[in-house]
């Protein structure tokens, strides 16, 4: 039923992505201090935005699931956490690839890196619960509860990690590169990339969500058939 919307979204994602790629590699000027690696930033930041947005969505879906019930909320939360983990992983990898030439190390316990990593661990635990437990309404409730608890934790994590790093300043983080976008074209490129990734996020979420909905329907149909068979046998 939502196939046309899905395809339209996919197509606009493709177009936006191509425009963003063109801007990143052809249009935007190279940053003076960091050179060409700074261009990672244009896709790194949108990944982070998408990851945060999906984790927020997980909590919202969890609240609605506990409040109203309905498999649809559970499927939404499930889809969101998966897409969020995908982008959270990409944030960590691309960040690492940027940090190596600029900071001289793959990893440092900088406040942003640490926060992202802790989020990655939190939602990884949630995904493992989803993967190991069978699909029952009870497990859906567990997942909703963990999604809410994790979202509540996010602000505390941000505050504590920031405080942790300011008390222990890392020598490496002296050059806070990548944030002074002095050229307006850089800002434009970033904004277009963010828009492209938002579309991508919506599309991926929709794809995964549609698959989970199908799975739910499949389960319902199988149950119905079993019931009819059972009744036929009893009769």
């Amino acid at each position, binding site marked *: 039923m939502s196939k046309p919307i899905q395809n339209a979204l996919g197509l606009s994602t493709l177009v936006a992505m191509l425009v963003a790629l063109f801007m990143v590699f052809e249009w935007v000027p190279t940053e003076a201090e960091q050179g060409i690696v700074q261009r990672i930033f244009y896709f790194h930041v949108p990944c982070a935005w998408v990851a945060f947005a999906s984790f927020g969505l997980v909590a919202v879906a969890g609240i609605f699931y506990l409040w109203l019930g309905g498999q649809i909320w559970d499927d939404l939360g499930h889809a969101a956490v998966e897409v969020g983990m995908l982008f959270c992983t990409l944030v960590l990898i691309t960040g690492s690839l940027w940090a190596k030439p600029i900071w001289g190390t793959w990893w440092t316990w900088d406040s942003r890196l640490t926060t992202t990593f802790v989020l990655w661990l939190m939602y990884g*635990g949630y995904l493992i619960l989803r993967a*190991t437990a069978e699909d029952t309404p009870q497990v859906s*409730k567990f997942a909703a*509860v963990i999604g809410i608890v994790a979202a509540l*934790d996010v602000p505390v994590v941000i505050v*504590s990690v920031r405080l942790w790093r300011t008390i222990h300043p890392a020598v490496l983080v002296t050059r806070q590169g990548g944030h002074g976008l002095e050229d307006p074209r850089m800002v434009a490129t970033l904004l277009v990339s963010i828009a492209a990734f938002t579309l991508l996020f919506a599309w991926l979420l929709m794809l995964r969500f549609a698959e989970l909905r199908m799975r739910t329907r499949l389960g319902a149909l199988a149950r119905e058939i079993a019931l009819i068979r059972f009744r036929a046998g009893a009769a």
Partner: protein
Amino acid sequence: MAGYAAIVKKDLMLEVRGGRITTVLVSLALLVLVVLVFAFDRAVAQGPDTAAGALWIALVFAGMLGATRVVLSEQENGCLRALLLSPLDRATIYAAKLTASFGFMVGAAIAATILAMLFFNLEFSMSLAALMLVLILGALGFSALATLLAVIAARARGGELLLPLLIVPLFVPALIAGVKASAAVLSGAALATSRDWVGILIAFDVLFVTAGYLLFEHVVGEE
């Protein structure tokens, strides 16, 4: 309130008669500290920073084990089902289980503190009360989370690893704050110098005791 008191009294009586959980937690704290003493170089394994880290490692492991035991003791023989069938409010059951886990964790914290002071050659002159306050705040937040998540881990049949996987990342902010505040206190600084850290601990406790209290009914619901 009477129901809460009854459950807590039952847990306390079981423990006074058997003493199983306390024995396990204190021995676990001892083992963790022993491992750390040998794992670190002798020159490093001294001083407030290492001691604070060691204390919190012991606390986290004891907390996980304690909460699991407290929840499993109800799970055995369908006790939890009986509790749920009783007219008690779910939130009351949560408060009672939280009290039990918290009590065990504080016991483990006291034992671990005494052992750590001996093992890491610390001065007894620093303020023990301040250290205990920090540990108690950490234990409260941890058991608030652990009580909620131990039920999930026990009922989701995800295996023993599920509880640590869920709780350790969630506990990170309190862990950072607790270790920092403990290290400061152990090195002789006044508690007022780590006001920010204590603030984070208190915020963490308030947040997750409330969240656990409100969400527990969804976790122990019908099969």
